[in-house]
């Protein structure tokens, strides 16, 4: 049981990294980027190519992954999302167009990578951080500990940055009212790029952890994660960092328990039912959200 709880914590940390980026992109800019799953996969793919025949230390691989994810995300923001948001119109309609465009970008990325890899599994150059310990009867590897640590540190740092730094204040201002924010000498465009870079970089880190943890991945593997992330964001509340952390751990726990005590094939249905119940009973999520709540007053 203790072992399972620990595994849940590892899984939850990966979910946190993945859904945090999606959550702030949606909460701050209204960009529900459904290409996040494709970015995760693409970052790990590029890292596996660049790292081929080099024995990079794990930190370097992580940096490569986060850079790739961040750059792809910023490109999408500058070329596509920004143009959509600037074209004007109903807020809900703009969000829908962003969703559609991001799905299309994801389909292109997935198609290209599955073409190059011929749908085969791709790996990192070597197995990283494999030394294992036994603490209180729980077996844990350095990689697992690193993942949990990274999840905690990165989400904590992001939370601190949003609450305490001047840039974080600007981000929250844009989330509540972009127009007034621009009157306060906030460069909304640069801020949007910064936010989307962060979102992509977090996805990239999650991608590296995923491929290292599971030993390899395929191009088609990215969409399952997307729905999970969506459930986490809904449970936690859009744009809420603490909410994403709690949502991710809750979700991972639910998934682990269901897989352990039922036949396993029912696990997804219960997660989706959870989404439906949360939206019906408490649409803003278990924690307060940013933009949407203000809109709906």
């Amino acid at each position, binding site marked *: 049981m203790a072992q399972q709880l620990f595994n849940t914590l590892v899984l939850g940390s990966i979910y946190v990294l993945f859904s945090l980026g999606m959550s702030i992109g949606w909460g701050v800019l209204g960009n*529900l980027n459904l290409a996040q799953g494709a970015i995760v996969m693409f970052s790990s793919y590029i890292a596996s190519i660049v790292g081929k025949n080099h024995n990079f230390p794990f930190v370097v691989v992580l940096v490569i992954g986060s850079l790739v994810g961040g750059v792809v995300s910023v490109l999408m923001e500058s070329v*596509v999302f920004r*143009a*959509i948001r600037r*074209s004007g*119109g*109903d807020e*809900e*309609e703009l*969000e*829908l*167009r*962003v*969703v*559609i*465009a991001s*799905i*299309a*970008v994801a*389909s*292109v990325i997935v*198609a*290209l990578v*599955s*073409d190059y890899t011929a749908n085969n599994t791709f790996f990192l150059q070597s197995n990283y951080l494999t030394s294992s310990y036994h603490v209180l009867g729980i077996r844990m590897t350095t990689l697992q500990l690193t993942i949990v640590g990274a999840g905690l540190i990165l989400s904590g740092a992001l939370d601190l940055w949003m609450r305490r730094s001047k840039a974080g204040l600007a981000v929250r201002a844009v989330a509540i009212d972009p127009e007034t924010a621009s009157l306060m000498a906030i460069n909304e465009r640069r801020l949007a790029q910064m936010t989307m870079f962060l979102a992509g970089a977090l996805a990239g880190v999650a991608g590296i952890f995923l491929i290292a943890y599971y030993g390899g991945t395929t191009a088609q593997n990215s*969409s399952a994660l*997307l*729905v999970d992330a*969506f*459930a986490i964001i*809904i449970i936690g509340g859009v744009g809420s960092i603490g909410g994403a952390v709690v949502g991710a751990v809750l979700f991972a726990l639910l998934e682990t328990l269901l897989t352990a005590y039922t036949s396993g*094939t*029912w696990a*997804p*249905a219960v997660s*989706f*039912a959870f*989404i*439906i119940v949360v*939206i*019906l009973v408490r*649409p803003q999520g278990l924690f307060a959200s940013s933009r*949407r709540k203000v809109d709906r007053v």
Partner: protein
Amino acid sequence: MTGWFSGHEILIQNTMVYFLLALSIQVPMRMGVFSLGGVGCYAIGGYVTADLLLHGVTGGVGALLISAVGGGVVGCVVAVLVRRVSGLYLGMITLSFVLILGVLAGNLGSITGGQSGLYGVPYSATSLSFLVVCLIAIAIVAASERGRIGRTTETLRTDHLLAASMGIDAGRWQLYALVASGVIGGAAGAMNVMTLGFVAPNDAGFALATTALTMVVLGGRRSWLGALIGAVIIQLLPSVITFLSPTQVVVISGVLVVVVATVMPDGLIGAVAIVWTLLRRAPKRLAGKPPAPTPVPAPAQGAGLRS
């Protein structure tokens, strides 16, 4: 021509099915309701039809009617449950509904055939009967694009505050939209089984939902013609154009969707309408007359205001 048609008959029937599927997403979207419930009803219609035909309970027409009515009932139940939800949240809650149906389909082995689905469904549908169903759907939907209903839906989509102040009950129209979406989706699901002879959990998946959504955005959301254009581009063209590899097709259609979503809010049909208006005005401008004072980017814009 007849040779080409008989060689591609299944494909054409399939395109008609996807046209109806796109229509089931488009009808609610026309009044600003983003619901994927139609995809769920498509799956339900598919399984109901497969079970009815496999056990010989009804013929094709009966199965189609039962699926359509069943889809409408499910749409009604969903509409009552989600009556306080709107926007992207409604889209995502209905997406969860679709995905749950997919899991149910994979687990209820005795009714749904589990992960492998139901195979060998006896069917005897003709392309002509499919065409009749599509024409009926087009006639009803096209009628709802005009007159009082057309103005109401237009107002609901473009300005829900204005709609409320005009005494339009958005909740009730959301109910109508979801029921209509369910009926069309159920019929499409039934026809899909009659074309292919099988139904599987994939018929209630994320991929199908995004395909349906893509067709609507690509073609345009305001008119049934948009759904038809979307279905032809997404479903028919890739199989007819054989000189491109599957990867190239995905890349090209993906880029096309990005371009349309970015610069053409009303889809390809909206872009065509704008170009048409410009062309029609061009000769007048050349003759030295001042350009028309009212910019008319698309038909029926703001019709609700004037009524």
